[in-house]
């Protein structure tokens, strides 16, 4: 083993079964370094680096890298494990024979090889292939069928939130509102913006996309009851924060009660706007 690599790389190489598919130690070590370079921050500690390597799907990574090098044994194994299942897998998501065939064919040959180069072993190779298929399907077909694009949808909700500075946007939105409604909007915005990323995702999935709790659970790989508890807690916290915020703005309990009994579609609009305003921060 060359001295330029950590000693535990040899142990990882053995665990990866890279030798069986013809992958050399040096190539495997380079694949590890590429993965860590891509995902780990420069200031990662030695312990974090080791944990990262140990959590990789080593045998999948070795197989993918060996395929990229055109090694016959690796391709034979890869084809046996995955390639023949591309079409039936595509059929599961597309539910249309011709589209499924097109997706599967588009991944064949050189395209497959070039995509495999990007595999880093963070998830399983199977999960990665599923993600590639899902990506192709959403890119090529769902997007064509969607009559209103995401940008158009955002624009319909409020172009102000995307184009104007926050202060101008805030002023513009509150024009024509009563004082109570304005307080309510401000309280909702403050409460929503304090939510953590997972809670913001839950709000978007549940209120924007109309996913059921069971669907959210399935898509996150947790039980529906767990999602239900998280949503309950989230909505309780939102309500509490909004109430406190309204009290601080001088509203009495009756006014607060009336405000919170307002049309839910208005509340939804505000939650939507607050979440969408986050786009500006991400896009900057």
């Amino acid at each position, binding site marked *: 083993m060359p001295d330029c690599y950590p000693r535990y790389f040899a142990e990882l190489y053995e665990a990866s079964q890279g030798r069986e598919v013809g992958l050399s130690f040096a190539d495997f070590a380079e694949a590890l370094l590429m993965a860590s370079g891509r995902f780990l921050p420069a200031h990662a500690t030695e312990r974090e680096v080791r944990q990262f390597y*140990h959590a990789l799907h080593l045998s999948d990574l070795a197989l993918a890298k060996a395929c990229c090098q055109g090694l016959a044994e690796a391709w034979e194994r890869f084809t046996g*494990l995955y390639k023949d299942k591309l079409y039936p*897998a595509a059929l*599961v998501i597309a539910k249309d024979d011709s589209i499924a065939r097109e997706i599967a064919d588009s991944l064949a040959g050189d395209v497959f090889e070039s995509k495999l180069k990007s595999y880093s072993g*963070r*998830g399983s190779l199977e999960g990665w292939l*599923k993600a590639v298929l899902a990506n192709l399907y959403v890119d090529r077909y769902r997007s064509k069928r969607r009559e209103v694009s995401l940008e158009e949808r955002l624009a319909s909700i409020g172009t102000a939130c995307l184009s104007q500075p926050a202060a101008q946007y805030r002023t513009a939105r509150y024009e024509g509102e009563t004082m109570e409604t304005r307080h309510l909007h401000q309280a909702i915005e403050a409460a929503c913006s304090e939510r953590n*990323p997972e809670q913001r995702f839950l709000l978007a999935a549940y209120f924007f996309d109309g996913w059921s709790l069971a669907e959210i659970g399935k898509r996150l790989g947790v039980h529906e009851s767990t999602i239900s508890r998280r949503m309950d807690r989230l909505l309780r916290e939102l309500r509490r924060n909004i109430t406190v915020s309204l009290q601080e703005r001088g509203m009495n309990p009756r006014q607060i009660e009336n405000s919170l009994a307002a049309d839910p579609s208005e509340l939804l609009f505000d939650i939507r706007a607050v979440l969408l305003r986050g786009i500006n921060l991400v896009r900057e």
Partner: protein
Amino acid sequence: MHLDPDTLAAFSEHSLGRSEKAAVFAHLAHCETCRELLAVHSELESFPWNPNRPSPRTQSFSTFRYVRVAAGFLLIFAGSWDLPRGPKTDAKRQVVSFQWAASNNRLEAAPWQRRVMGLTLATVSFRKVHPSAQGNQISLKTALGERWITVRALRSYSSGRNVF
């Protein structure tokens, strides 16, 4: 910029660290396309891509090494040399299919399901379920003492519902 397949696969398999997971959630919160991607990806969750090689959540290498050592002892106790074959990651998917009998508080498994993380359950003397406060954990009481493992889900025999 949308989620790349590597990140999406790792996210779905719960392989990301806390900060990376938060970053993915932050992206999903505002990106409709990636939420759709996640939804389509999850449709393939149950697709039997390779029944002999399912790929559930990642576990740390050290955990596997620990359990494999324990498995070696168990096999000796059982006097069996039927060594577990197949990749290490088979284990959790098999655990998912276990059922919990509330009446006797034991894990029940068909013979073909009895391999968990390299342990042949037929050799385990007693199996007790503790849905703990930490979440998806069960304990296997073996000749070597109690061993905790993390599973994705556990289904109850009596109700037919997931215990967790």
